[in-house]
């Protein structure tokens, strides 16, 4: 009697218990039909695992590129403004036919959301610098042997670069939060200002600690953590403004609750 489909299937996949496997193995060795099936199925699996990528026709990219240009929140938007260019203006996004029926608020919103995404990206870049570089003593070295031992100068440079990225995100978000402060009620604005003051104070203290002990890993981490906290707070502020504009009471309440808890 032949093994069941289920048993043969599991035999081919190697998921049988040793005893079950041995039983099927004995049958397969004795039964030409089952042996043929097993060999074919194993060969199928082997070839299937080696199937290769297939280049799409060039026209596909052209279509994607054109479609992306029509997207309301396009990656082809201007890059993040440099910190040295305080020219962040509420330029409306490119308007196409699909924008015609939007209210002014809706027209503004994608740009604000784009800024939130951009800030997140800058934050990611800062995190990558710290995680993938040789920022911390003892971290995995990058590709070249010359880089294996981080110097005090290299650590300082990495920290400065990470700080620059955080400051870039902070700068852009602060401009939005300041420009749109009028959307917040006085009580909420006061709460946010209080939280920001606390974070700014923590940044000052972390800077002071790092100046006193430039090689201290906890001091370095503390400064980056406080930058991260400020970016997060500003992101929440901009998100809150968006929720208020959209009239999303649940979203507004959730963000306010988190802000009051100091999350």
């Amino acid at each position, binding site marked *: 009697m032949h093994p069941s*489909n289920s048993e*043969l*299937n599991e035999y081919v996949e190697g998921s049988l218990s040793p005893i079950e496997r041995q039983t099927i193995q004995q049958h397969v060795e004795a039964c030409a039909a089952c042996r043929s099936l097993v060999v074919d*199925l194993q060969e199928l699996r082997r070839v*299937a695992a080696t199937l*290769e*990528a297939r280049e799409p026709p060039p026209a596909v990219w052209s279509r994607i590129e054109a479609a992306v240009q029509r997207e309301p929140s396009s990656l*082809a938007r201007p890059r993040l403004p440099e910190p040295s260019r305080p020219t962040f203006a509420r330029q409306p996004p490119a308007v196409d036919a699909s924008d015609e029926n939007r209210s002014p608020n809706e027209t503004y919103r994608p740009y604000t959301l784009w800024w939130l995404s951009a800030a997140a990206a800058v934050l*990611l870049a800062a995190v990558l610098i710290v995680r993938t570089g040789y920022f911390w003593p003892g971290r995995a070295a990058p590709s070249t042997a010359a880089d294996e031992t981080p110097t005090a100068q290299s650590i300082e440079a990495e920290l400065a670069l990470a700080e620059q990225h955080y400051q870039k995100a902070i700068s852009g978000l602060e401009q939005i939060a300041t420009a749109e402060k009028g959307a917040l009620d006085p009580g909420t604005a006061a709460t946010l200002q209080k939280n920001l003051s606390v974070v700014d104070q923590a940044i000052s203290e972390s800077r002071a600690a790092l100046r006193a002990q430039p090689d201290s890993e906890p001091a370095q981490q503390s400064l980056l953590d406080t930058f991260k906290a400020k970016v997060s707070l500003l992101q929440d502020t901009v998100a809150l403004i968006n929720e208020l504009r959209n009239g999303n009471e649940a979203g507004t309440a959730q963000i306010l609750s988190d802000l009051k808890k100091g999350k």
Partner: protein
Amino acid sequence: MTSSGQPRGSTAPSKSGTVSDAELAARCQAGDAEAFADLYRRHAGRLFALACRLAGSADVAEDLLQEIFLQVHRKLGSFKGDAAIGTWLHRLAINCCLDFVRSRRAKERKVTQTLDDASSFVPTAPRETLIARIDLERAIARLPDGYREAFVLHDVEGFDHKEVARLMGIAEGTSKSQVFKARLKLRAMLAE
């Protein structure tokens, strides 16, 4: 591959050269359109092949690839870097393709048979030649929906049955039976 849950697959050459995927993702998120094109160059081949196999048609796969990269464009802002961008793209592509296949199946009102475990197979004549990849690709395209997705996800992409079941919204046992049925059908087709 699959012990880590990472799909197998190769990375196509890219103009971006030595730029890492993480760096490329960060540049895309920052609005760098050239980086987005590089992301496409780097991953389109693998995702197009995936779409061809899951949809069973290169024409449909072209549309799917466009939809995949539009979704990538829309969702890149939410990519947090918790996983490699290639893994994130692969998952997004699989979901996009499976959504399409499910929708098509619903329209066509096709019911996929489940494996009758009690039935015994009918051995076909042993083949004398090794399987050519191109023949296998053609045979995969002829598989019924359901069998094809399970086979592609398990035997080509390397997901385990638990993950295939989760992705397809079926029971793990159904994944096993559909993959096995698919193999039997492929074997028969390749013997024709």
